[in-house]
C-alpha cells in the first residue's frame, strides 16, 4: 500500500470521554462497549484520499490518566493534528479542555491543527451546549465537531476535517513535494512539519514517531 503523506494525529481528552471508541469507530468502524482503559498510548492507522492524494493518518490514542502525562506528553511531539475530545454529558470534561489545549501548545507543533470533539451526543443527558463548545473552539482557533462513536455520527468528518486542513497548510506552502513511497522500503521517509519552512524534513531530523515508509 502506498501513500503520499503521513500525518500524526493525537487523540487527547479526559478519561472516559470515548477517545478509544472514536478511534475504533474511525479506523475499524466498530464500537465495542467492552473496551478497557487505555494504558499509555495505543496506535491505529487509516489512509484516506484527499484531493487525489493518499494520506495516512497515524492515530495516537493516548490515555487520559493524569499520572501518565509526564511520560505520554512526549508522544505529542511531531504531531500535526489533534482531536481533543470531551463528553457532552460531563461538563467537567469540557472544562478540562483548556488544560489539554495548553498541553498541546507546550509539547506539540505550535501550528498543530486541532478539532474539538463533543462525543456521546447519542445520550439524552447532554449538559454542554453546542454554542458554548463552539465558542471555546473558535476562541482558540480550533474546529468543532460533535460525534457519537456509538452510531458513528461525525467521527469520519472530524478526522477528515483535521487531515484536510493539515493537507491545505502543507499544500499551500508548496513545500511538500508529492512523493509516493512504497510501504516497506526503509529509509525513504518523510514527515510533515507545520512550523518549519521546509515541510519535508531530512530523514535524520525525524522524531522516531514520524517515520514514513
Amino acid at each position: 500500500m502506498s501513500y503520499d503523506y503521513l500525518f500524526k494525529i493525537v487523540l487527547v481528552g479526559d478519561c472516559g470521554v470515548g477517545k478509544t471508541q472514536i478511534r475504533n469507530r474511525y479506523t475499524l468502524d466498530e464500537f465495542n462497549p467492552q473496551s478497557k482503559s487505555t494504558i499509555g498510548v495505543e496506535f491505529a492507522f487509516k489512509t484516506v484520499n484527499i484531493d487525489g492524494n493518499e494520506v495516512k493518518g497515524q492515530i495516537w490514542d493516548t490515555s487520559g490518566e493524569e499520572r501518565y502525562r509526564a511520560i505520554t506528553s512526549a508522544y505529542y511531539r511531531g504531531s500535526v493534528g489533534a482531536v481533543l475530545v470531551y463528553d457532552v454529558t460531563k461538563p467537567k470534561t469540557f472544562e478540562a479542555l483548556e488544560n489539554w489545549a495548553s498541553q498541546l501548545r507546550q509539547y506539540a507543533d505550535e501550528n498543530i491543527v486541532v478539532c474539538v470533539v463533543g462525543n456521546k451526543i447519542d445520550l439524552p443527558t447532554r449538559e454542554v451546549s453546542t454554542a458554548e463548545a463552539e465558542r471555546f473552539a473558535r476562541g482558540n482557533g480550533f474546529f468543532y465537531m460533535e460525534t457519537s462513536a456509538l452510531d458513528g455520527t461525525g467521527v469520519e468528518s472530524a478526522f477528515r476535517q483535521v487531515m484536510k486542513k493539515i493537507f491545505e497548510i502543507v499544500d499551500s506552502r508548496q513545500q511538500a513535494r508529492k512523493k509516493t513511497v512504497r510501504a516497506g522500503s526503509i529509509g525513504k521517509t518523510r514527515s510533515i512539519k507545520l512550523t518549519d519552512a521546509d515541510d519535508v524534513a531530512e530523514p535524520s531530523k525525524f522524531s522516531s514517531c514520524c517515520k514514513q515508509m
Partner: protein
Amino acid sequence: MADLFWRSTKKPGKSAGSQPAPESSKFKKYQNETADAWDAADDELVKGFGVDPDASRSAALAVLARYSKSPKSPPPAPQESTSKSSSNNIPKQKLNIPPKENAATNSNTEESKTKPKSPIIVSPGPPNKSFTGLPPLTDAQIARSEKFSSAINRDLTDLADLRELAWRGCPPCYRPICWRLITGLLPTARERRLATLEKKRNEYWKLVDRYFKLSKEPSHKDTYHQITIDIPRTNPSVPLFQQKLIQELMERILFIWAIRHPASGYVQGMNDLVTPFLHVFLSEHLRAGEKFETTNMDLIPQEALREVEADCFWCLGWLLDGIQDNYTFAQPGIQRQVSQLEDLIERIQPDLFQHLQENSVQFLQFAFRWFNNLLMRELPLSAIVRLWDSYFSEAGADERSSLHLFVCAAFLIHWKRLLLDQCDFQGLMMTVQGLPTNGWGESEISEILAKAFMLRSTYTLKQLS
C-alpha cells in the same frame, strides 16, 4: 489449567531419583540445575521427591472421597489443628493482640469451630467439591500436593520452602493459603493464623468504616471518580466484573488503598492488579463446576465476600508497596525498567533490537503497559495467576520486579519471528500491542518463565541512577 499446571513445570532433572528435595538455602543453585530439565517424566518427579506414588495416590483419593461426600462442608480440620487454632490454648502474649481484641477474636474463633468456615487456616485440602470435578490426579500431582500440604501444615511454615514450591506453580486448591502466607497476610506460625487473619480482616473493615465516606469529600472526589470510571472497564468481557457486588468491592479496596498512599494515589492499571487476587480468593467459595468468570456473586455468603475483599486488599497492598515507584510522579520505576528492558534486548537479541530501531518503534510505546499493568493486558487472567505464583516465589520486591523484567524480555523474544516479519512501524505496532496470547496457559507461561530464568542467570541489568 489445573490439569496442565502439573505437567510442564520445571522438574528436577539431574537430581531426580537420587537426591531429596534441595535445601531452601540452595534454592538458586537448585533452580540453575533444574532449569533445563523440562521433559523429565512425571514418575521421575515423584521419585525425585522421594514420595511413594501409591501411598500418595491412595491418600489423595481418600481425601477426595471424603470431601465429595459432604461437598458443602469444609474438610474437617485435623484434631491437632483444631485445638491449636483455638486461642484458648494459646498464651495471650503469643497472639500479640490487645486483650480487648483478643476477646473478640476469641469468640470468633469459638464460633468458627461450630460454624463451617473456609478451610484456609489450618487444613488446606481441596476446599470444596469444585476441585473434585477435575480429572484424576496424576502421581506427580499427588506428590506436589503432598509437598504443599506438608509445607503449609507445619507448625512453623518455612517461607523459603513454600516459595521454592511456588516457583513451579501452586495447585489451585493450595494457592489461596499459599498466597496468604507468602504475602504475609497469614503468619508462618500455624497457631497464630486464625487469630491474625481475623484481626487483619477486622482491621480492613474498620478502615472502610472510617475512610470510605471520604470518597464523597471534595479532596478525594477525583480519586473516587477515576476509580469508578475504571472499574466497569476492568476485564469488561468477564461477566463477573460487571456485577454490582464485585464493582463495589473493588471500589472500596482501591479507594482505601489510594487514600492511604498519597504519594502515588490511585493510578489506572491498579484496578487490573486486584483481579488475580480476586480470582484466587473467590475460588474458595465457588460451588461444584462453577466458573470464576460467571459466578453469581449474590449466591456467595456475604461474610465470605467480606473475607475475600479484606484479603484482596492486604495482598494488593503488599504487591503495590513493592512497586510504588511505578506509580509516583513521572513513574520513575517504569521509566527505569523500560530502559533496562531495552538495554537487555540490545544485548540479547541485537537483530530484534535493530529491527525495532530501524522502524522507529520505541520500547516505551509498547512496554509501558507491560510494567504499568504487569502484563495483565497481554495475558489471560488464569495465565497471570500462574505467573504470579512464580513472582511470589521471589524473596523480595526487588527480586519480583527483576523477574518481571526478565519475563518481559522473554515475552518479547518469544514473538521475535512474528515481529521480524513486520516490515514497518505500523505492522510492528499493531502486532506488538495485540499479541495473540488468547489461548495461553500453563505450558506457555512455564516456557516464558524458564527463558526468563535462564536470561536472569546469564545477564545482569543495566544499573541506572
